[in-house]
């Protein structure tokens, strides 16, 4: 089943055109990545799909729900993790998970199960009972990632999920995403780290200056451009000469 369909999506802020008529599709259970340099339009695209920004033009559907007319319903099937986001510093990690879960579900047993799942995923153990202000950046990011997926959204949208993390924390985050994808969760992620994208994604779109330059699997792209890795593919796309 098609999880996400983006057709000719355009996003303008006054004269500034951040996204210029991009189109792509994501299938259910797929990990799809938008990869490109800073300012390419990745975050704007993700924020639009997460219903935070409104499309200037084009059409977006999430599991058949139209973003323009059914934004409220879309919000109950997605979960979004912004780049370098923080959490409520005066809540404990567990209280934060409970607060967020309670926005998605009413029944106590469902809620408790989600919180327990999120707590397990975070790997924070006893630190979950401490205030978030005492957490390191890596701990906060792991908590936020657990928060994003604990309610088992049909589409998880992750903006630069490993940004600012050290090698070990980034590795753990990638492993979590991969294992959840195996369980059937659909992911839309953005990154400027080509190696990460190659490891994580089933398919990817290379985006620059608000346009999609190429969209396929990593191996197909490497083959098409006769490149050893995605970085080379990207360089050949943006500097064809």
């Amino acid at each position, binding site marked *: 089943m098609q999880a996400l369909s983006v057709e000719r999506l355009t996003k303008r802020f*006054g004269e500034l055109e951040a996204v210029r008529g991009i189109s792509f599709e994501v299938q259910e259970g797929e990990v799809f990545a938008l990869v490109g340099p800073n300012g390419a339009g990745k975050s704007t695209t993700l924020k639009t799909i997460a219903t935070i920004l409104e499309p200037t033009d084009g059409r977006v559907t999430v599991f058949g729900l139209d973003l323009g007319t059914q934004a409220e319903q879309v919000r*109950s099937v997605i979960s*979004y993790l912004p780049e370098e986001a923080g959490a409520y510093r005066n809540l404990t990690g567990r209280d934060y998970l409970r607060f967020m879960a309670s*926005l998605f579900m009413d029944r106590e047993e469902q809620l408790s199960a989600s919180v327990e799942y999120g707590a397990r995923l975070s790997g924070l153990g006893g630190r979950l009972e401490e205030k978030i202000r005492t957490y390191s950046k890596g701990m906060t990011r792991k908590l936020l990632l657990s928060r994003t997926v604990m309610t088992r959204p049909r589409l998880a*949208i992750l903006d630069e999920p490993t940004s600012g993390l050290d090698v070990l924390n980034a590795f753990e985050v990638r492993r979590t995403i991969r294992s959840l994808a195996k369980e059937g969760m659909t992911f839309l992620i953005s990154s400027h780290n080509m190696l990460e994208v190659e490891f994580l994604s089933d398919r990817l779109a290379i985006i620059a200056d608000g346009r999609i330059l190429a969209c396929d699997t990593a191996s197909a792209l490497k083959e098409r451009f006769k490149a050893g890795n995605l970085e080379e593919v990207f360089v050949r796309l943006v500097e064809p000469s």
Partner: protein
Amino acid sequence: MRKFLILVGKEIRELMTPQLILPMLAVIALFGLIGKIIWKQAQNAPSGDYLAVVDQDRSELSKRVLADLQDKKRGFRVSMMSAPPEEVLGRKEWGNFVLLVIPRGFEAAVESGQKARIQVYSVFRSLGARSMLSAAHAERAERSVDESLARLVVESALPDLDADFVMHPADPEEYVAVGDAVQRVPIAQVLGFLQSQTFLFPVVIFLAIMFSAQLVSMSVVSEKENKTLEILLSSPIGRKTLVFAKLAASAAVAFGFTAAYMAGMRSFMTGVTGGMASSPQSESLRAAFEGLGLVISPWGYAMIGLSVLFAILCALSIAILLGILAEDVKTAHMAATPLLLVLMLSYMLPLFVDLHSASRGLKVLLAVIPFTHAFLAPQNVVLGRTAWVWGGIVYQAAVFFAFVALASRIFSKELVMTIRLRLILKRRDRNP
């Protein structure tokens, strides 16, 4: 409703940080402590005003005048000095005091039917409010000497007449009329009570409005800065629920602190005014105040409370918009400056301007500011102008709902995230 309450709970927990609570409690405790210290000082201080006297005339007349000054009714603590005035004035170990000098020739002047010269020095060693007040008693010392001298002159010139009758043939009865109510009560006592009330109420209202506005704008800005707002905006909760939860939580916290401030301020004012701020000091005075309608009824307090509540809500709804415009926590204070200026205007002007005689333009300006109605509510209740109070509340409610509608609209659109960027781009277009 469930999600609203969950959000309010989260907001309150985020707002009630030790960094916020401890300084607030310290300020409140400090207010109370200062009030208690002032009260204790006033209780322990010897009664009467300190008056140093240098009698250079050393005549019978000067002695009689000074004896009269020491009469308990006059309320002076006279200290006779043998040193010359220059030396007395130079004494550094004393605080503020009044020096009365009776020069040579005092008695001779009176006997020859001429005006007798006296010198009164007000000596300042500190410029505190209480010291300034006690120094103002110099004028009273001057009047006392004058009256005492007049009495002696009358007694010697007209021995058959009652000197008190000659000097005060009229027996004035002081009445105060407030609205339609008239009571026989000295104006000085009414003024003292009213001044303490008009000082206490506006200060507390001012603090409550300012504090709640800062809370909500900081809450919005920190959510934007931490990107927790983006997470909330992409979650299945109504955007209006988000706005109302922020307003409700900030209002609840602000009310808690306002009540605590009120208690601290009351203790401070009791110390400063010697108890007049809390209640009139005698039963007869209380009865007179009640007769004048100066003792506010529970219904009156309810009206004032409602007006203050809507003033706070207006400030919250405006501050939430200012919070959206701010870039980060640092600039949030700057963004709240226009609100603070308007608040100052509505606080200061009614304190110093008689609104009855003010120009129409000034009246309209003050009426347009929703906070003015809360500042004026206590006096309007006391003066029986309930229609004005209700009119103000209706206007405040209209302003509040208009700003909340605007905030909800901004939150329900992407504007909450993009308004700043749009403004920056517009400015760049104008000045490329």
